[in-house]
């Protein structure tokens, strides 16, 4: 019998070699207690959280928590059904209303996760003989949406407007075209030049889908994302987003002004063939989304945190993913996986949690320590974090 698991042997060996060096397992961290959006007890130590997607710190907002408790009491623990059968409650409709108000769009469709939103929309709208033109650094959920469908897949170099235009120009006349972009690319924390890219997409009559998972709530005057910040949200056909970042719970969505959008509810398999979100989750999401509309002061503080951390790490001599802070993600580039893991562990022992990101999730085979800031990090916490980076970096020999 051929062991179907033998294909994983190289990864198993790499992992064993890493753990044999005595490093704490970066992919097996347990949070025993969560004290606030920015602090937890991790592997027995009190730790500052700098590797969550809790950008706006909504997880412990009292109104959000109360809404979830009320929904649990009134609607129960779960729906036990699909959105198109018995799984659409009042709360799901209220959540979609909140999204329509938040984005100023006509239609909103809530999925059980952000992953499923990309999977469902991309695989459903681009059919056989249509073309999907996408950035090579797209998130796994976008690539998996491409794999699930039958369209022709044409990637282009990251954020390269000219490369994207050339590919669009060569697509046979009459074929349907979908351009897929992200507002913030989550590995390096860089943003896309959406204004220029969308203008090129429009020139070639392509429809445009933008994943704003890492910008919602934070970037743009109303927190609608990078497309809003660059003044082109009205040119975007489909915005994909998630509740598992700034919104502070779990779930995904697509908003659109397409007049026929509602048909998606019947034809999109990752929407139809899965259970809908529990009532408590959609209640917390709806409350959080409505509060994020008025999050201007928090957005300003988060930008200040991002600038302080970026400037401080640069001054200490760390190599960063972007020359300037472009989002709430600051990626610190490590020389290799071994020293990356050692630095990750040194930071954890200092009492700081960041994400260790490694190939194949990262571009150009980089090992990254990815820091994501929260609007609830205080200015003092950011200074504490910089001190931890300085000590750990010197101990590991990176700076």
């Amino acid at each position, binding site marked *: 019998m051929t062991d179907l698991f033998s294909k994983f042997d190289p990864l198993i060996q790499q992992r064993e070699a890493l753990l044999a060096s005595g490093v704490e397992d970066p992919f097996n961290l347990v949070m025993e207690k969560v004290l606030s959006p920015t602090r937890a007890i991790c592997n027995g130590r009190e730790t500052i959280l700098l590797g969550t997607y809790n950008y706006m710190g909504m997880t412990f907002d009292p109104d959000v928590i109360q809404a979830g408790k009320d929904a649990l009491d009134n609607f129960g623990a779960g729906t036990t059904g699909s959105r198109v059968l018995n799984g659409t409650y009042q709360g799901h409709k209220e959540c979609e209303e909140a999204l329509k108000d938040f984005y100023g769009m006509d239609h909103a469709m809530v999925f059980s996760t952000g992953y499923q939103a990309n999977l469902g929309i991309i695989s459903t709208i681009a059919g056989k003989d249509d*073309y999907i033109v996408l950035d*090579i650094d797209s998130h796994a959920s976008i690539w998996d949406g*491409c794999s699930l469908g039958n369209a*022709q*897949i*044409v*990637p*282009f*170099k990251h954020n390269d407007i000219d*490369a994207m235009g*050339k*590919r669009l120009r*060569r*697509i046979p006349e009459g074929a349907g075209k979908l351009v897929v972009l992200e507002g913030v690319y989550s590995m390096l924390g860089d943003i896309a030049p959406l204004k220029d890219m969308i203008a090129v997409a429009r020139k070639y009559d392509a429809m445009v889908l933008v994943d704003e998972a890492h910008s919602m709530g934070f970037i743009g005057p109303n927190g609608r994302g990078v497309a809003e910040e660059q003044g082109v949200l009205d040119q975007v056909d489909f915005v994909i987003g998630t509740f598992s970042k700034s919104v502070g719970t779990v779930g995904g969505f697509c908003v659109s002004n397409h007049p026929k959008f509602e048909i998606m509810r019947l034809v999109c398999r990752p929407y139809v063939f899965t259970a809908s979100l529990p009532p408590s989750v959609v209640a917390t999401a709806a409350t959080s989304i409505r509060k994020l509309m008025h999050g201007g002061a928090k957005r300003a503080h988060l930008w200040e945190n991002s600038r302080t951390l970026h400037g401080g790490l640069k001054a200490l001599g760390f190599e960063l993913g972007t020359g300037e802070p472009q989002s709430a993600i600051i990626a610190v580039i490590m020389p290799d996986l071994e020293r990356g893991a050692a630095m990750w562990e040194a930071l954890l022992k200092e009492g700081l949690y960041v994400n260790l990101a490694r190939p194949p999730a990262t571009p*150009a*085979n980089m090992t990254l320590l990815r820091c994501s800031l929260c609007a609830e990090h205080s200015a003092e916490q950011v200074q504490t974090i910089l001190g931890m980076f300085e000590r750990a970096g010197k101990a590991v020999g990176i700076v």
Partner: protein
Amino acid sequence: MDRAEIDARIRGLIEPFNKKGISVGDDTTFAGDLEFDSLTVMDFVAAIEDEFDIIISMNQQAEIENYGQLVDAVCKLQGD
């Protein structure tokens, strides 16, 4: 453009990506013999697409494992 000319042009394009100077024949594989990773594939495909003003979608790339198949595919796309 005939097959020989397309072959010659692709040979020129492959050179900067052929880091180990492997001798390239029709049965030379990209993943195995030339050790192309996904980023190299993207850059190499882009160079060919620009040279011949064609699109080789990922669906088509999945069918191309060796050099001869690539030349055949470009010949076909040129004819379309």
